[in-house]
């Protein structure tokens, strides 16, 4: 099958048995790859009510049809499972080189089932596949283990690992790859840990077949030329996502002190330009990317090397806990990477505990004696260790802010900043209704990558709560996750303005299947409705209330900065959902209608 490797590896960890299956043509046609594969496999193969940490859950690692090809940023791998953080659908994508290597080895996806009796890692060298004993790596950090495996197996192996946090069941543990890239969100690493799968190591020497080589190379050339010619190339490549830091602060969306504000009075200490000058060593790219946004940094202050900090980390482990020294943030980033913690959820958890402490909801009795004041780097480092080891207060925070708010009570759930149980990523949205709606309806919980609509709020008017905003969110929720189906990065489009028309054209050239961009968006909509159906099936009573943001949204105005005094009223939250559901063809409770499922070809599969 052109543009695909043609084989899926099914790994039964309980029995230590690995099966090679031919890639299902209908799966490729109907769901493209990556996130589409994951959603389809999880919906069809998981039994209703599966325990996310039990043997019934499956960890899917999936590439897309563009992965490993000469297309800018064709290095995105999807990790997916039923989430231990939310109880619903989870997929998280990671850049780097893993998906490319998987396809060169001959595999489109890995499906991990069951629980291994002892720690193992999956070894893949073209046809040679086996589970290898990994007890000696158990307990070691993600980066350390990757280094050791590369030394043992060879530099050419691409490695994905988990850290001690995942082994201990911290619900927001990530999968790490390429020394600092993570499939970070919603606990896909936690599922890997529960399966006692410490790592995946892959090397491949095969070629990926394509349908029309000349046409593919012609479009590929145009895509690379267009990226390099983009006016944004220079600044984007110089700073990567850290270039967003000061912009976000200026527009009042930089989450500060547990999202109490959208502006941080010491944001200059986190500025992208300062970071570049002070700690960045090397630009670090994902596979095939000519505009490398990854930054490899060296903090002399803390004596560590780390990838980043990315924008999200500067936001959540910087401003949101009021750290203003980029080297302190870099060290917190390093700790998260080595322990295998998602920096977004970890930053939220710490900020939540700090606000609870400052409000007197918890005292030093609950904090193991620590004074949890904002702005204290040592406290942040200590809490990260406690979370990873699940010690004392860390055991509560290891289960996410929704859980911690339940334990500590006293109204703290109002400012536990999460949706569906997943902590919010780095955009304070009380004066950005489209961004808020993006968080409310993202299909893994409060994450920005499905729809990043804050620029639309800025463009059309921040106070407006109008139909076009719901329409924009839906449009973005189809475009952006489509890249995760294709196995390719979206940032060339988002940041460099690369024309979307290239993607349908190059996909046609490599697969030989003629599909318009609209056809592809329809597939993305199918996936979106399928992940929604997964939530409906797996979560008792799932519906509208699961799309609500934290009550702080309407109860408390922003306390400082350019959006001071702003909030989104409860009425406007309801209005946003009404508009969104109606435009999506869902009922008033947010459940896809029969008609919508039929339109998307899902009515046989989905019975809700």
């Amino acid at each position: 099958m052109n543009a695909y490797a043609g084989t899926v590896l099914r790994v039964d960890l309980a029995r230590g048995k690995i099966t090679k299956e031919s890639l299902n043509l209908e799966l490729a046609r109907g769901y493209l790859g990556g996130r589409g594969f994951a959603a389809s496999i999880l919906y069809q193969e998981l039994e209703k009510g599966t325990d996310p940490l039990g043997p019934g859950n499956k960890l899917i690692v999936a590439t897309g049809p563009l992965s490993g090809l000469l297309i800018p940023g064709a290095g995105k791998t999807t990790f997916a499972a039923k989430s231990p953080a939310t109880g619903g659908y989870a997929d998280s994508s990671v850049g780097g080189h893993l998906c490319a290597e998987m396809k060169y080895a001959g595999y489109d996806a890995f499906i991990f089932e069951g629980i291994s009796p002892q720690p193992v890692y999956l070894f893949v060298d073209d046809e040679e596949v086996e589970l290898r004993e990994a007890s000696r790596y158990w307990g070691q950090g993600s980066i350390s283990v990757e280094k050791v495996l590369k030394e043992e197996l060879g530099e050419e192996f691409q490695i994905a690992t988990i850290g001690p946090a995942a082994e201990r069941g911290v619900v927001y543990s990530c999968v790490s790859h390429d020394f600092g890239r993570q499939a970070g969100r919603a606990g896909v690493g936690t599922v890997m840990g529960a399966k006692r799968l410490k790592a995946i190591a892959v090397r491949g020497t095969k070629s990926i077949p394509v349908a029309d080589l000349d046409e593919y190379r012609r479009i590929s050339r145009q895509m690379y030329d267009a990226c390099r010619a983009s006016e944004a190339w220079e600044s984007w490549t110089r700073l990567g996502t850290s270039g967003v830091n000061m912009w976000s602060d200026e527009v009042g969306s930089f989450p500060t002190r547990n999202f109490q504000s959208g502006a941080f009075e010491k944001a200059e200490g986190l500025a992208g330009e300062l970071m570049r000058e002070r700690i960045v060593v090397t630009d670090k790219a994902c596979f095939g990317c000519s505009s490398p946004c990854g930054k490899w940094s060296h903090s002399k202050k803390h004596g560590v090397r780390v990838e980043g900090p990315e924008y999200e980390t500067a936001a959540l482990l910087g401003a949101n806990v009021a750290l203003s020294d980029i080297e302190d943030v870099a060290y917190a980033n390093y700790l998260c990477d080595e322990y295998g913690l998602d920096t977004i959820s970890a930053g939220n958890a710490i900020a939540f505990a700090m606000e609870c402490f400052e409000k007197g909801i918890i005292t030093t009795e609950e904090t193991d004696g620590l004074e949890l004041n904002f702005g204290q780097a040592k406290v942040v480092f200590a809490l990260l260790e406690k979370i990873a080891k699940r010690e004392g207060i860390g055991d509560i925070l290891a289960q996410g802010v929704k859980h911690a708010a339940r334990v500590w009570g006293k109204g703290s759930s109002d400012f536990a900043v999460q949706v569906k149980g997943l902590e919010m990523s780095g955009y304070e949205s009380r004066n950005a209704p489209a961004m808020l709606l993006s968080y409310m309806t993202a299909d893994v919980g409060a994450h920005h990558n499905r729809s990043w609509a804050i620029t639309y709020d800025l463009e059309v008017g921040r106070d407006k709560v109008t139909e076009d905003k719901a329409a924009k969110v839906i449009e973005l929720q189809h475009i952006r996750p489509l890249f995760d189906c294709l196995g390719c990065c979206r940032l060339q489009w988002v940041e460099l303005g690369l024309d979307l028309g290239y993607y349908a054209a190059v996909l046609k050239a490599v697969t030989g299947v003629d599909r318009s961009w609209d056809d592809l968006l329809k597939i993305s909509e199918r996936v979106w409705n399928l992940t929604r159906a997964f939530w409906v099936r797996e979560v008792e009573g799932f519906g509208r209330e699961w799309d609500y943001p934290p009550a702080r949204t309407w109860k408390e105005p922003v306390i400082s900065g350019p959006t001071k005094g702003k909030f989104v009223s409860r009425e406007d939250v309801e209005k946003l959902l009404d508009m969104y559901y109606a435009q999506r063809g869902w009922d008033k409770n947010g459940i896809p209608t029969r008609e919508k499922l039929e339109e998307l070809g899902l009515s046989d599969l989905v019975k809700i």
Partner: protein
Amino acid sequence: MYLRADSSKCSGCRACLLACSLYHFAENNPKKARLAITPHFPNPGTYEVRTCTQCGECAEVCPVDCIPRDEKGAYYIDAEECIACMACVDACPEGVIFVHPDYEAPFQCDLCEECVSYCGPGALYIE
């Protein structure tokens, strides 16, 4: 004419390797490339790019004299004459004469410049 690399500008994306394999073998396969990138992570966190320097040591050690130079000045292995002894592979000081299980004869850079045209940060250049 030489293909040069400024390793400090390389970000390790490997587009050059893929462009190379597509140009010479019409295949998507970085393992069939004629230049090499070695990442050194986590410490110091750099990429090392190696290209053919046209030093000619391969030609000197070839027992059947099948590594002549083409009109660009690039040494190339004549696969028809090659006896696959791998003396050139071992002798290459840069480690940029490559082998792949699909082919008996090794292969090396022929200064086609395809990799240069795909290198976003400009780490590769012709001199």
